[in-house]
């Protein structure tokens, strides 16, 4: 694959939720390409369509208009199971609320993702070392701070070395120091050759990004 093919891109993406009077136009004619090695920040007011765009990029939501391509290949015709396999192999997700499995330890949370991706479960400890949690392998989420939980989530997203990392407000529940720590981690991942998209309200987080894209009323603002 040539270096300049975007890892994930949308062209003319539009999204309308609901029908008739209740229809909400959340996204309208968005073109966006995310390349290898770049960390992109999606910013914009509440309700502007950031999460909608992230879900479309992550193949979790089919756009009502436009095309989504992963590694240059359109995904429109793919069956849900194939899309699932594509997400599993190519993408790592990080959520505002961490979405860890509370009954599993930090290590097991990461091993769950490794198991899904058919990887060796022994990689779990390495991944947690990489996010600075080598000493907390056997802690349960409730025993970890918010920043630690989000780092477990980053380690989980890294399982299987996906090329694309998508994060929706990963620092919203964290204090500044912890939040910036997580974002610096994401930035390093981008520099190591991944495409990273971070939705954020925090200008300091956006400040660390290689590129900032502002969304307003479902469109990319100049």
């Amino acid at each position, binding site marked *: 694959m040539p270096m300049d093919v975007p890892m994930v891109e949308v062209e003319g993406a539009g999204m309308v939720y609901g029908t008739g009077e209740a229809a909400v136009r959340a996204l309208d004619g968005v073109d966006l390409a995310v390349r290898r090695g770049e960390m992109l920040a999606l910013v914009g007011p509440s309700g502007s369509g950031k*999460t909608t765009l992230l879900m479309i990029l992550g193949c979790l939501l089919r756009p009502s208009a436009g095309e989504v391509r992963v590694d240059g290949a359109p995904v429109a015709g793919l069956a849900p199971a194939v899309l*699932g396999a594509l997400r599993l192999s190519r993408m790592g997700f990080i959520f*505002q609320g961490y*979405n860890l499995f509370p009954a599993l330890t930090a290590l*097991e949370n990461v*091993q769950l993702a490794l198991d899904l991706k058919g990887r060796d479960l022994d990689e779990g400890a390495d991944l947690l070392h990489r996010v600075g949690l080598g000493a907390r392998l056997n802690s349960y989420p409730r025993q970890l701070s918010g920043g630690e939980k989000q780092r477990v989530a980053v380690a989980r997203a890294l399982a299987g070395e996906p090329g694309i990392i998508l994060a929706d407000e990963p620092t919203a529940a964290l204090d500044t120091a912890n939040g910036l720590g997580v974002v610096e981690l994401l930035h390093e991942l981008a520099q190591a050759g991944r495409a990273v998209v971070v939705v954020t309200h925090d200008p300091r987080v956006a400040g660390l990004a290689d590129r900032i894209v502002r969304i307003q009323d479902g469109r990319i603002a100049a």
Partner: protein
Amino acid sequence: MTGKRHWGMGMAGLLGWRNLAHDRSRFVVTLTGIVFAVVLFTMQVGLFLGFQDSTTTIIRHTGADLWVLGKGARNFEITLPIQERELYLVRSVPGVERAEPLIVQFVPWKKPGGGDESVIVVGFDLNSGLAGPWGLVAGDAAELRRPATVAIDTLFADKLGVPGAGEGKEATVEINGHRARIVAMTQGIRSFTTSPWVFTSLRTAFDLTGFNEDRSNYVIAKVAAGADVTAVRDSLRAILPRCDVYASEEFAAMTRDYWMFTTGAGASVLVSAVLGLLVGAVIVAQVLYATTVDHLAEFGTLRAMGAPSAFIYKVILGQAVISAVLGHVLGIAVSLLVAKGSEAGAAVILVPLPLAGSLFGVTLAMCVGASLVSIRKAMTIDPAMVFQR
């Protein structure tokens, strides 16, 4: 547990197990539901087996190969008498080694302290060795050779108004207007009809039933070594047009089917078994469903990550299997205790270990079936929910 594989179900099994164990009080409710269902079901099936066993107990403990009885009878307990002529005809057939009469007749029993009971007199030919009471715990079978003596089972001593009979006390009773002494006690010979057995010699049985000596309810026969039971049966059928002739197993099957199914007694027990199962399944379904709903966000996360459906099936089915195994083991343990306790009662609950084992299939099916609703719920959630708060 941080091992690589769990019960061959990988991290899915681990997640299922942990989520169950995480909600400890709910898990206790799940197990209680399963144990309840297992005990109810096992008890009913065990009762069915116990009843079934009691319908053929005397046939099975008799050394006869062939049973000759008045035409049209459908069970062991109620038959019309046949003639002595038939006994001689049976004896005349080649291949019959021995044949003897047997009396099985309902008669009234007057309790020493007042009140009547219906009993079934079973009169054996004590000399032939083909049949006779077994499982004696008191007295001596040889005593039955004396006139006007009987044996009863300890299970029925109270019911017959002779508590403590056989414990050294001489008990004289009145059967169908004739006095008789209880000289021996058996233990564990149950009666499906709930009318107690009264074992006695053929001679005493004639007196107690009022039969002429040329009558009996059965002629039972043993075939000679090497003779074919079916062939002898067919020869007997040919020369005894007014009688039915059955091989021992045929007769046992007929009387068992009559009591268990024609009368509906067995069917009602089985219906209770199925009801127990349904109640259990509903409880299990409810609790597994509640567990699934509680963890719906986790299933959403799995879906968003791209977990295949098979993984989500494994999580929920793993929970069903774990619940089934634990619930079944506990349920069978309770059932075995109850079965043990029933040994002294008139209705025995039989829980043979192979039954306990094969009923695991039923428990598993119940738990897996109950989990299907949860699987549906988990499979239909939109993975996009993980980003929507």
